[in-house]
């Protein structure tokens, strides 16, 4: 059996995630117990931040794919749109879920409907869910591809909005870790675990995107063969 490069990268990413979990919960140093309501819950951060980071990469892929399909009618663009929305959904759900667990422990509530970053990121994840479920509900065709690509293009506006949300409308969510100000930077062992997590998630979604493109190619081939059988 031929093993595809996408599957190897996917497996490497998965192993990286396992390593991240191990380091986050059993190796990384504890935070200052006076600085947080629930210090041990801070370990979720090593999962949450890389997941959100990977989700942003996936949404960028979704945007590029949507633009390629919408403006160029590129078949590769459509494959990237599918892969980006699926990876965005998976990573977005992981970031939202881990954020809710942390929020429940630290803030006493899993969600704050008035926090811009939570809501804009939640909307991005719902957009990815809409694209994945919506696409499955429709027969493949230019009408559905055009419509979903339009949503993919509009949705990307939320990515920079989500990133800057904690700088402009600081309500509850902590400030950015990557590219933030001096107070927000971390160092030492914590940064190492975070880096391993970010690399693992990035590897995982690259593997997912490659595998998804391959699967879409097979689906489209099946569709063509089906139409051939129908005599079209």
């Amino acid at each position, binding site marked *: 059996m031929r093993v595809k490069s996408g599957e190897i990268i996917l497996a490497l990413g998965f192993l990286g995630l396992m390593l991240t979990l191990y380091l986050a919960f059993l190796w990384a140093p504890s935070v200052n117990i006076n600085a947080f309501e629930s210090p041990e819950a801070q370990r979720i951060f090593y999962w949450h931040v890389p997941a959100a980071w990977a989700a942003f990469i996936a949404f960028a892929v979704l945007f590029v794919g949507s633009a390629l399909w919408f403006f160029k009618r590129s078949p590769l663009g459509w494959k990237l749109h599918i892969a980006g929305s699926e990876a965005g959904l998976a990573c977005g759900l992981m970031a939202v879920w881990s954020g809710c667990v942390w929020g429940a422990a630290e803030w006493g509530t899993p969600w704050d*409907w*008035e926090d*811009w970053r939570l*809501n*804009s990121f*939640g*909307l991005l994840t*719902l*957009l990815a*869910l*809409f694209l994945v*479920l*919506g696409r499955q*509900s*429709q*027969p*493949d*065709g*230019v*009408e*559905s591809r*055009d*419509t979903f690509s*339009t*949503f993919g293009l509009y949705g990307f506006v939320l990515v920079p909005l989500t990133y800057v949300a904690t700088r402009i409308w600081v309500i509850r969510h902590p400030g950015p870790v990557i590219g933030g100000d001096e107070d927000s930077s971390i160092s030492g062992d914590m940064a190492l675990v975070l880096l391993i997590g970010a690399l693992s998630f990035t590897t995982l979604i690259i593997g997912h995107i490659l595998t998804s493109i391959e699967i879409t190619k097979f689906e489209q081939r099946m*569709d063509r063969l089906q139409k051939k059988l129908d005599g*079209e």
Partner: protein
Amino acid sequence: MAEPILELNNVTVRRGMGVVLRDFSLKVNAGECVLLHGENGVGKSTVIETAARLLPLESGFVKHNGMMICDGEGRRNNPAKPFGLTLQANCLVPSQTVQQQLDNVVALSDKSYNVKPIIESYKIGNRRNDKIAHLSGGQQRKVAVISGLIPGMVSQESRLILLDEPDSGLDDDSVEILVKQIHMLRNLGHGFVIASHNKRLKECATSLHDLSEATNQTPDFSEVWEVNSDDKNYSLLRTKIGWNLNFTTLVSVQRNWLAALLVMGGLLSIADPLTLSDRDVILMGFTLAPAFTMGLVGDPVFKILSEQRAIDWWRAQNNSVPNSYLESIISGFLITAIAMQIFIQSVDYRIILAGGGIVLSTSFVVRFLQMSTIRLPRSNAVFIRLLTPILILPWGIIVDYCAKL
């Protein structure tokens, strides 16, 4: 030389993953009847829907009476003159009566016309005041066909009439009447494009077109349709703001009001407002929750127009599809005033205004999302409402603001 009534110039149209029409051209002049025939899937309905500007063009353009109404760049202009349209789906509003449906079509032509004799000619005169939903499938088809013919029946000026499988579901007598009326209207100077396999309808055609080549013929029929209409300027305002549709169907009561009242009842069942008198934000949230719910249910007019693709008929005729924004804002004022009486035991016009604004803006966003997916083959199955929870954020901000008033 007079402009053709319809001109499709080098249009390319995709449906699904295939190109159905590639560089297809067609001209229909006054007094011509082009009958499209050919195998299923050859593109007959696509030609009709393209001519009615319901499908986006990859290239080329469509003109009605010399005026460009849509092109490959995505531009869309309202047709200067109304045109007759009967699609494969009936495009009727099931909650309206036959008379109301046809009156709307007559009003779109800015004419006053007694449709009773036409309805009687199709032997559904006794069902004139019945709701369309109560008619049989064949009777509904008759109403759809009459709707398509009316712009020609009320006008001395040349009109375009597009009929997609008009004979489908009609009995033999009705097909005979239809054939006769098409002959008479064509002789008056109207132009037809008809998609059909019916042999009787083929006799009406001046040109038989299988989408690759056309064969001309001369129909043998001399009688001309006599127009008995008067000019009357209808603004259609009551229809466009959803007044007529809302009042005749009570759809907003059935959907938006019911949902809002249920939410109010639910909130009352979990908390006694008197025990929350010191918790301003929660009380304001309870007060504005019914208005928010009302908006989230969506535009009721959009719902009834989607039932039998009547929205496509409106989209073809006019860029502004009827909406119920006015009704939304009035309902928002009312439901917020009621909620204030129940939860706060006082009335503040600023909060009532906020309630109206919440219903209007929320239903506008929901409608915008729904309209964005209208082109999809299964637009009702597309999970578009997954995107609406974000509206909780602005609603929460308004609640906070109102609580401080």
